[in-house]
């Protein structure tokens, strides 16, 4: 099998991704799906900025992540506690802000699955799984950064700025590709 068999550019032969998803509409359909995707991510991302959403939903999520991270870390060390949106490890603390909830990453990943030409049950399961994976990876990110912040402040910057964005991108790319492959296999 040549790499070209694996790497196919969406073009007029969109039937390769549209089994069971209605008639082939080629580039027009691809453009429409891209537009819907952008509308979804812009709309949902901006929803996270609404004050009432922040107060009623995101604040609880930030608290939840802080307490969950503290609970996990307390298994390994005794000097861990959570207070509001902060995780204290020893004398240092990290604050869970909106960029640390994983919701934004989940929105970008799940939206891609929702607009992909696959049967709706497959899309919905994929979106739910994608969101869960984004939240889980984000929790790992918070745990690692909380530990590094206490013991290795210089490594904290490198891991925060360079390593985790790469890892999250990797996980999202892998999740999306694996899901696409699974969705197509189910389509037959």
């Amino acid at each position: 099998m040549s790499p070209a068999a694996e790497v196919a550019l969406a073009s007029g032969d969109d039937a390769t991704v549209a089994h069971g998803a209605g008639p082939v509409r080629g580039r027009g359909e691809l453009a429409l799906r891209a537009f819907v995707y952008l509308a979804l991510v812009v709309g949902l991302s901006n929803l996270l900025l609404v004050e009432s959403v922040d107060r009623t939903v995101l604040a609880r999520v930030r608290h939840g992540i802080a307490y969950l991270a503290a609970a996990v870390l307390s298994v390994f060390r005794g000097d861990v506690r959570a207070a509001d949106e902060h995780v204290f490890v020893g004398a240092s603390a990290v604050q869970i802000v909106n960029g640390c909830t994983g919701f934004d990453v989940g929105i970008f990943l799940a939206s891609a699955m929702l607009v992909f030409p696959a049967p709706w049950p497959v899309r919905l399961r994929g979106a739910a799984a994608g969101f869960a994976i984004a939240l889980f990876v984000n929790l790992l990110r918070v745990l690692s950064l909380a530990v590094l912040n206490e013991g290795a402040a210089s490594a904290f910057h490198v891991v925060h700025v360079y390593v985790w964005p790469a890892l999250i991108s990797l996980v999202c790319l892998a999740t999306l590709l694996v899901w696409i492959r699974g969705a197509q296999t189910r389509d037959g």
Partner: protein
Amino acid sequence: MAESSHFARLLRSRAAWLVLRFAVVYGALSWLAAVLPVYAELERPLVATANAFLRESPGESRALSFERSGAGGTYLYELRVAESARRVERDMHAHGFVALLFGALVLATPWLGARRFAAAFAGGAALTGAVCLLMLMVDVAGWENEARAALNLAPGARPFSLPVGFAAGLHQTAAAGLLPIVYWALVAVRPDARRA
């Protein structure tokens, strides 16, 4: 048993190799960005473009510039209203990480053929540039509000003729970097169903 064979198939799949190549290339590019002023150089054309989009009106002028310092830099935003002026200085944000992600994905992808590659790359590059520019423009909109508040002017004036408020959510986190990844995954590297 079924799960283990599924996992084995996954490991053998070209999708797994693509992800692995992407990891290696992105790691290399990130290392370069850590030791060379890559992000600062990527920021220059963004600042120049954003500056070109700034709105001028009678009695009001705006200017955005970028000063390199070490591996990073500082944004300088100046608002002039009649005789008053206010300058806002902010440390560089590495908006260019989106370009690094996209570049790594392109380099990690097997050759698509010249025509297909050109079409996919052009779309992805345009998307990447737009995302980076919008993130910077949202920053500038915030600095405009700060400058107006410092000058005791009413808030709400838009520094750009173009609307950028819709991008505020994208800018909140680095998740916008996933846009070109999703684009590339859906447009250029989707597995071919005919093999299934």
